[in-house]
């Protein structure tokens, strides 16, 4: 791989990580509006919102460092996690190749969110944080089973190597399904958006954030969604072209397919979102636990070599 390819792809990656998520959000909003027979905001509306937030001074409900630093840590973690994913054939900053490190760094976004929420005497922020933690608790075993099945099949935990090494058996296909489900739940899409439920608990932790702190935090959450979906889209698109893609041109091909799959995923998510109503937290826990118990069978299948 040439140095130029590295630099060019890394540059594209950074631009995608920082500036694509608001666009995806705008597109999703538009699709939802169309399905619900509304006019909807312009596609670029999320950019406008972000710029407005970032230009305003925040109002502080506390002097606590945990609350004040949380948005910055969330932002840094989300971007760092996104930087270890493959863009074409390039990983921009490879402090790790391991899927667990990726997930743990990404989880720091949620941790910042929870610590900030719990560090205030405010029942709304507390409740938001509380729900975020419970969602994480309920989805973690499903995610684990998906990764476990892939690891049994591909004999590696490296993000860049799994899609190249995986052989498509029944269990792997099911594991892809579980991974997609986990990504959907972790991303906090409707009906799993209880932690930031706007009408119900005043957007949870965000009820006390304002100005650029709110802007940075919201941006971080969008980047987190992007990172999760980019992981899924890489796992889907690389196996499609892994036998024909070589050289810089092959990298470009992979990147284009990754982007197409990402848009496809985001569109389908918007469709699902527009047709669902928010679940209650105990319903989510019950549902995820059910999925976990059923998906143990997937691991058994994988262990049997199917």
């Amino acid at each position, binding site marked *: 791989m040439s140095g130029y390819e590295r630099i060019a792809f890394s540059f594209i990656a950074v631009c995608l990580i920082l500036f694509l998520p608001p666009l995806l959000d705008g597109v999703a909003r538009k699709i939802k509006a169309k399905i619900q027979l509304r006019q909807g905001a312009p596609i670029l509306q999320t950019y406008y919102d972000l710029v407005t937030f970032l230009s305003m001074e925040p109002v502080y409900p506390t002097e606590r460092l945990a609350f004040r630093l949380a948005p910055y840590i969330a932002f840094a973690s989300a971007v760092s996690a996104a930087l270890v994913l493959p863009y074409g054939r390039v990983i921009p900053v490879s402090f790790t190749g391991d899927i667990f490190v990726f997930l743990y760094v990404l989880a720091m976004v949620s941790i910042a969110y929870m610590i900030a929420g719990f560090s205030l005497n405010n029942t709304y922020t507390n409740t938001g944080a509380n729900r975020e933690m419970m969602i994480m*608790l309920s989805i*973690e075993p499903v995610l684990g089973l998906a990764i476990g099945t892939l690891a049994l099949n591909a004999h*590696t935990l490296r993000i860049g190597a799994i899609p190249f090494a995986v052989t498509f058996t029944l269990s792997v296909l099911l594991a892809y399904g579980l991974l997609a489900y986990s990504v959907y739940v972790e991303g906090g899409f409707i009906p799993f958006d209880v932690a930031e439920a706007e009408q119900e608990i005043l957007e949870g932790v965000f009820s006390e954030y304002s100005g650029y702190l709110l802007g940075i935090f919201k941006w971080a959450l969008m980047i987190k969604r992007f990172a999760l979906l980019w992981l899924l889209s890489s796992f889907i698109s690389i196996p499609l072209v892994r036998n024909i893609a070589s050289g810089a041109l092959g990298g470009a091909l992979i990147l284009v397919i990754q982007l197409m799959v990402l848009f496809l995923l985001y569109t389908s998510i918007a469709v699902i979102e527009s047709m669902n109503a928010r679940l209650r937290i105990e319903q989510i826990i019950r549902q995820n636990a059910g999925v976990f118990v059923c998906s143990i069978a997937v691991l058994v299948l994988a262990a049997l070599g199917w």
Partner: protein
Amino acid sequence: MKELFTLTVILYLLSILAVLPLRKNYRASITVGHVFTGLASISLLAFTAMSLPEALKGKAIEFTYNLGVAEIPFHVDGLSLVLCLVLGSLGLATSIYSPKYMEFYERFGRGWLYVVLYSTFVLSMVLIVTTSNFLWFVFFWEVMTFTSYLLMVWENDEEYVRKAGWKYFVTMHVASTLPLIVALALLYAKAGSIEGLNFNNLSKLHLGPIYYLLFLLGFGSKAGVVPLHFWLPDAHPAAPSNVSALLSGAMIKVAVYGLIRTTCFILGLNETFGYIVAILGTVTLTVGTLYALKQTDAKRLLAYHSVGQMGYIWLGVGAGIALMAKGGSYAAFGAIAMAAGLYHLVNHAIFKGLLFLSAGSVLYRTHTRELNVLGGLAKLMPLTALFTFIAAMSIAGEPPFNGFMSKWMIYQGTFLSGDGLLVFCGVMALFISAATLASFVKFYTTAFGGVPTRVTENAEEVPPSMLVGKGFLAALCLLFGLIPSSIIPLLLAPGKVLTGADLSGWISTKYWLVTIKAPGMPSGGETYFNPWLLVGVLGVLAGAMLVSYPNRPKKVVKVWTTGEPVKMEHYKLKAMHYYGPFEEYIHGLYHSGDVLSEWGSGVCSAVAGGYLALGKTLLRWADKVGRGITSAGRWYVENGKEVYLDEAVASPFVQLVKGLAIGLEELSLNYNLLLAVAVAVLGLILLILAGW
């Protein structure tokens, strides 16, 4: 090197001698005692550092103490050094922390006794992990159990402390000491001499599966493995916090040492046994941590997490044993899995020690450990808050702290094992990692988050010496997280010795980069992690944002209450309300855990009951025999001639001998008769022999 070890032992003994003249002065005795124990810990750390090169080569340091009446042989290899490192670091931290903290217990007096017990306790652990004779091992084991019991019931005016201590004492003797003593007796019967009980000699014997069971029971109950964990959440919080730190940080680790030393080095690697250990570990980490999730007593919560984190260690070690026993290319990978378990052992000792010291600091200033009434301490005790945060993130397994590195290696060891069962264990470990995070988010934010409550409003930062003790452990959390190469080579040493495998192709640690390869991995599939690059990227990104969007609150407004006039203390979630729906959902699991715990408790009390019944029966028989003898004596005294008891016992023999002598004397005068009798006797003997 041997000299440094001897110096450690002498310093611990000196600390006991030094406090004896200070029996009247509580504070002076504790300070002087801990100066010596602190020096002893430093000397132990120095010994560890000096012995490191030998251990890395796979060699061991051997020496013998000749006490005149007995000889204690020592064998210090990589596995022993891992434990020496733990005991040295924790010992140093508690020695710095304790003098101020023990003022809290001044009303009980007897500072000198505390120091005597503390030194004996720590010294016994140091000797357990270094001695190479099973008899001495069991002896020091009992010393450790007994002194830890006495330290645990230090606060003996509290009913619950006495109860917890008694539970500990009975359980340990029935479930831990008894199996070890049975094993000792069986081994002695085989080996035939005390020298034969040296580990080296024992490993040459052919020993059956019963020993695996005895050691599993003996060390499992000490380590708090489900279902033999029921004593731990009561016992560890009962002790003063500095002792709790040693109990949870060091003592239960010594049980892991014992397990590895006996079952791997003496009995030999066994695949089935490895799976049993891994599965027990998985059950333990699940049950322990999910129970911890609903605790609101700070120290009880930490104790349940000790059970849970112990499960991680057992999972790593168990997977290691199973894979090493499998052999082939898995042998080397098994050594990595075992190193992961040992890594978590070291890390858990450090962050759990720190967490107990933090809970102790909160107790020291607020006189409570109930999370429901605490709050807002981050503002009043900022450094304690920082150290607690570091420890909480370490145990929750967040990068770049040490807990993450070891959990990450455990995930590698299980997920890449190519074995469905171990992968499932890994999945549970991943899930429980989230539960640990939940629990410590609660622990930190209830005690330190929010605005101060009535209980905490007058709290202030703890004295500097306590902070230094905690700061030392916090620094170690960062060191072992950021520079894994500082410890991984040592952790790999036991696996290397056990398998004789060359690990260079499987794991490499370059400064701070760790790369792991597994059997069957596709090319370019190695996993790696570079914590410094992660910290760098995070720092640059967060720093850039901070520069662009500076964070200086000019004015702080009250939180928004949607216009309701609500009191601040009513406007925050209490510890008991955290994660309510989730706990309600897994209610069934709590129930089955209760059943398991009751079962373990039942087995233990059944054994204790059986023992008691046996003792009672023996006593009754002894009583009957005693009564019989007494009544016979009385009868003799009343009805017999007036003789003394000894005469009564001896006189029949005397009469017999006398009669014989007279008879023989008569015989000896008549040679012919004598000869005839002799021939007759000879003939009789010949007849009997022929008949046989």
